[in-house]
């Protein structure tokens, strides 16, 4: 990196915040592993419906998944733009990432509402419990990410975010890509392998 961000000397040569974030992501893996394992352990154990095949809308969720994947692409472009000091495109890509995140959240709201109308609430059966807590926890992570991205975008509009903050954007990206990867696993385990 030519515009090296202001980093202190560290023993491992890795930025402190970035290392902390990798540790955080490691910890988050265990969180989602516990949730996904519980989903799998209780799969097919519901004693009353609605059951997953009756209610999961794979085409709709495929679009949401594609949307979230594209947001990861926007994130990569945002980081590249900030690193090369192109704040005009930096702002555009940051906002696009957040917007696609919001679209995903909107999709989740629609999906949850539809499920409730079809009689699946969090307390209906084991599928409802495990599904809503797993996807809801993921959705909360996306919401935090959107808030974070919008904060960076506002800072960029104010002119307070530049190449010197590339590490901040990179860490935001780490989080965003992680949340995206978790969704790929959830989409596969919950929706595709029924």
């Amino acid at each position, binding site marked *: 990196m030519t515009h090296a961000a202001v980093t202190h000397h560290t023993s491992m040569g890795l930025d402190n915040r970035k290392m*902390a974030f990798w540790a955080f992501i*490691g910890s988050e893996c*265990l969180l989602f592993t*516990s949730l996904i394992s519980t989903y799998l*352990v209780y799969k097919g*154990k519901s*004693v009353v419906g609605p059951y997953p095949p009756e209610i999961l809308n794979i085409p709709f969720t495929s679009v949401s998944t594609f949307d979230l994947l594209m947001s990861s692409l926007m994130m990569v472009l945002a980081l590249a733009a900030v690193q090369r000091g192109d704040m005009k495109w930096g702002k555009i890509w940051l906002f696009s990432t957040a917007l696609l995140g919001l679209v995903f959240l909107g999709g989740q709201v629609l999906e949850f509402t539809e499920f409730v109308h079809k009689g699946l609430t969090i*307390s209906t059966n084991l599928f409802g*419990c495990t599904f809503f*807590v797993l996807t809801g926890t993921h959705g909360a992570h996306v919401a935090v990410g959107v808030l974070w991205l919008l904060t960076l975008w506002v800072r960029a509009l104010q002119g307070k975010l530049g190449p010197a903050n590339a590490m901040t954007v990179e860490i935001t990206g780490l989080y965003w890509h992680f949340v995206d990867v978790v969704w790929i696993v959830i989409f596969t385990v919950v929706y595709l392998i029924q």
Partner: protein
Amino acid sequence: MSDARGLSSWLTTTDHKRIGLLYFWTALAFFLIGGIEALFIRVQLAQPNGHLVSAETFNQLFTMHGTTMIFLALMPLSSAFFNYIIPLQIGARDVAFPRLNAFSYWVFLLGGLLLNASWLVGPLFHAGMLNVAPDGGWFGYANLTERQFSPGPNIDFWQLGLQTLGISSLAAGFNFIVTILNLRAPGMTMMRLPVFTWMTLVTQFIIITAFPVITVALVFLMFDRLFGTHFYLTSAGGTPILWQHLFWLFGHPEVYILILPAMGVVSEVLPTFARKPLFGYPVVVYSGILIGLMGWGVWSHHMFSVGLGPIADSAFAATSMLIAIPTGVKIFNWVGTLWGGDIRGTTALHFAVGFVAMFTIGGLSGVSHASPPADLQQTDTYYVVAHFHYVLFGGTVLGLFAGIYYWWPKMTGRLLSESLGKWHFWLQFVGMNLAFFPMHFIGLLGMPRRVYTYAPELGVGGLNLASTVGAFLIAVSILVFLLNVWHSARHGRAAPNDPWGGATLEWSIPSPPPAYNFSVIPTVTSRLPRWKTEHHEAMRDPPATPPAPIHMPGGSWWPLVAACGLPVMALSVLTHTLWLVFAGAAILIFGIYRWAFEPFEV
């Protein structure tokens, strides 16, 4: 330490030494509360048909005794040393994230207060009694903890308290991993790290992987109780065994979170007072890492009585026996360190040697649980209580007291009395054996755990009385310790930089250290930098005054403000008041934003 005075300088402090002291005094206070709970339990059980407390209060006492000792006394006492000592041992000026460190402390304090508030707030919940403390055991087995069987706020205090404390531990975990890996002084390679620092690193990795699991388990429980989900309810096809798996997936690594720091302390104390390098340093380090990894593969030995089947039982029996090997290896390393050493019998050494002996007894009874047929006889009896008190009291508490006597001069600038210290040690050593050894027999004779009384026909009255006498001896020993603390504060001799002839960096600077710790960051060339060995000269200690001014970050209010959001959210769950959860979240987010955007140069 920072020179600023006044309450606000403590509320806003980001100095790792001050935060270490805050952890120490808070944990000591909770240790005394947990100890008083234990005395109530022992008085109740001193004779058959005891009637000091009701069965209901007894359930609260043993639940809060366990929860307090584990989460509010022993873990934070270890944290006190992580905070105070780790930056000094690796040659750093502070931890990697000083404000996150302050946040961890405040969340711990508030979580501890939240849990203990349950002793006094019964009338607010129209409970008909003063105390509505958690009463489901420290393991909180579902489905006893479900709304149907525990309708009061007791279990909510417990699950909210533990979720809050988990956030504190996780934040500290990330902080110390980065601190130890990234803030080492030049030349301080990983295989030159002091063993206490190494064991802390392993502990932090266990924390950041184990705590998410119990968080999920607690969230399921909270949803079951609040929103009518069925995670642990058989009526909807679920199973309470899920709780047991998730809890012990966390719970077994948790016992290594409790013991590894004490093992680290002992690995510092023994070499110093034997005037010998630790015998087999790499083996001690690798054994610690191995314990951390294998700790993840033994959890179902807590569940042999569930009936998971012969294959699962055999596999977990084998792993549980295997994990005794790296632990046993360390025992030999410590004995080998003392062997042929130039031994000075300080109080710290007494506690460290006591640790090795008592932990060995606890380890041996532990291996006996690894065999499922034997375990089926022992499970839910006092034999198990004997085992884990030898490990957690004989092990962790003695080990941490070794650390207290060893590092007290560094942390306070004053020496403790050695003669009072010896009184403390012998009273505690005799007391703990009198309290906990008879429990092996009480258990094998058939007395179950967690019963509030027993019939005289069981024939364990005499043994129980002996155990109670032992518990009071321990209480007296703690009073002697408090007397020693008071004496040290009033009349203690000022501590020099290095009262013990220690080999590690913390002894090269004043006691207590200045705010910046090291006037000049040292360059390390060996594992024992301050000792002259065959291959190395001793290092030169940093000069008394820094050659150039050293900038240290000022304090911040925002970690405290952010931390205050969490108990507000907890209150929302306790009182079923929706708007409070938004208020709490708003405080948390406000605190985090101010924290993120305030000028704070590390």
